[in-house]
């Protein structure tokens, strides 16, 4: 629509991150660079996932209407790498206690925002044509911020030794839900 519309969508997408960063006290811990490192890990993990998918999963040659359950299931399993990545970030990145989660999630989600949403917004929202999908995209990034924070928290809980046994099951279920979310939505 114009630069103004782009500004609107960008604000809608980015400001919650900014607010979360500021208000959760991360700034007091000089965690900016750690967030960037978490973002770099995100990039690395995505690259590995892409290479893996491209090498081992050939394109499905079947009909257009048939949904390849097995294939998509395998592809979704690769998203487990996301969880491993988060775990890696949290274990390697020094950071006190609970703030590890926040740092990892913030860095991860910001990297995802920049990589997957900035360019469509720039190209699309700046054009003359108006489409609701840009607002949707920005809103979606807000939701994924919350989603990643929750995911990081669950991963952290999974790796704790002193977790009561009763909590293990819901934690595992939640983790499973995170990974197969996209798959289940289909």
């Amino acid at each position: 629509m114009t630069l103004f519309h782009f500004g609107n969508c960008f604000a809608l997408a980015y400001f919650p991150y900014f607010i979360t960063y500021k208000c959760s006290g991360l700034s007091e811990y000089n965690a900016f660079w750690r967030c960037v490192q978490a973002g770099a890990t995100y990039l690395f993990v995505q690259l590995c996932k892409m290479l893996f998918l491209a090498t081992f999963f050939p394109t499905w040659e079947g009909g257009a209407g048939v949904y390849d359950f097995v294939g998509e299931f395998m592809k979704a399993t690769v998203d487990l790498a996301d969880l491993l990545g988060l775990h890696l970030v949290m274990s390697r990145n020094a950071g006190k206690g609970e703030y590890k989660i926040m740092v990892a999630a913030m860095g991860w989600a910001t990297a995802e925002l920049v990589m997957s949403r900035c360019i469509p917004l720039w190209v699309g929202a700046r054009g003359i044509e108006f489409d609701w999908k840009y607002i949707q995209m920005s809103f979606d990034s807000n939701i994924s911020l919350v989603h990643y924070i929750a995911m990081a928290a669950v991963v952290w809980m999974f790796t704790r030794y002193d977790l009561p046994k009763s909590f293990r099951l819901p934690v595992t279920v939640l983790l499973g839900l995170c990974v197969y979310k996209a798959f289940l939505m289909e």
Partner: protein
Amino acid sequence: MFEEASEVFDNMFKSSFPLTFIVFIPAVLILVSPLPAEAAHEFTVYRMQQYDLQGQPYGTRNAILNTEARTVEAEVLSRRCVIMRLVDFSYERYQKALRQSAGAVVIILPKNMSTMPQDIVQQFMELEPEMLATETIVPVYFALEDDELLSIYTQTLTSSSSQGSSSAAEVLIHTATANGFQMVTSGAQSKAVSDWSITSLEGRLAGTGGEDLPTIVLVAHYDSFGVAPWLSYGADSNGSGVSMLLELARLFSRLYTYKRTHAGYNLLFFVSGGGKFNYQGTKRWLEDNLDHTDSSLLQDNVAFVLCLDTLGNGDSLHLHVSKPPKEGTPQYALLKELETVVSSQYPEVKFSMVHKKINLADDTLAWEHERFGIRRLPAFTLSHLNSHREAQRSSIMDVRPHVDLRKLSRNTKLIAEALARVIYNLTEKGAPGDLQIFTEQMVQEEQLSSVVDWLTAQPRAAQLVDKDSSVVSTLEYHLGRYLKDVRRHYVKADKRDPEFVFYDQLKQTMNAYRVKPAIFDLLLAVCIAAYLGVIYLAIQHFGVLYSLVRRITAPKTKQH
């Protein structure tokens, strides 16, 4: 956070100078890059004519367009693109749009003209010359209708007509959420085309029996005219004339191959271009043949010149003359033969001679024979139209269904018979009026039909047919099959005082973008600011929310 970020950037800048370039140049390039936008709908539009004839400008002068769409019912039309459908088109509405200084006018034509009721077609045909006569700065485009364009039109219609609705709150909500369309053309401003050459073709059949034979010239112009050059197919005017000329060429070349039927007349066939622009092709051809060459068939003994113009329909035939032929001349003989053939063989045809003096004070000449008349060559035009001002001669509605093939072939036979009687001098030899020289099969209807179909398959406006065009080369090939000495003849406008000037940018691609009004952006900004405020408060007081949630879930665990 900003301090850390600025520290990082500082280090980056201080360390190496090229690094900053690597960072900045892509950013700058991305910022200034032009936007490839996707449109809601992209369609081809055809511009109204733009030309200068003898210094007088006609038609629309502008080609670029980047305005919001509205329909005629809207109140504010200035600097907007007015969309009209052909069924709703009327001259008053068109004038209203122009008076309110609209940005552009787009007229949507149905894909199949024959579905339109006759009175609308007739009314539009009559309006075309009026639209062209007034010189408009506003670009006027024609588009062919399809489903998406129709939906764009209906949406614009609902939003335009509801602008006058009642309450202020409604209007506010409506303007904030309406779906507008921005129409943008992708071309440049129109410029005059320099060095455009109009092509004409000539061919001949030489007569037998010595030198200095009389010559009969048969002429038809092949170009078409309409309010939009790309939409002018010119079926009846003058596709019928050209196909008849080709058929006559075929018939007489067959006759001339046998010694017994080889007559003592030279036949010269001329397919002229630029006919609708005051017969430029014919004018220059005459100048070249009469002034600039030493010997030409036109300089010696010309019996008469017969121009064929619009003969594909109707049950009447008019022979237009600028001077009534005197007795004893070959023109008089042709007139008499035509009357004889009509009365004895085709009684359903009403034949008459129409006498109209050449008026040199007029902007344009009426019929093609007047060009020959000015050079003192005896000429007439045959047409089923009574007057040269008939709208059918220059309309985009003149498409293939306008030509009735049976009537065209009947007219062809009629003219062939009359010509044969003149050439072979049959009346003097005592042949009766109803002697049929050409039998039914000789005039080939399929040939006529295929020529007319081919001619009407593409627009033949003079601005679109240049010397490499397929129309010209196909006509040349066809003439070459029957005639000898087929030659091309080119007309270019004079540099200092051009008789005709054509302009380009006649066909454009128009994009319709869905846009929202500016207020919508502001509204959205306000909503987003409110949303962000709520989020900020939620995060600031996250502790409160957390304890609230715990209090809700806590009684449940206590019950365990």
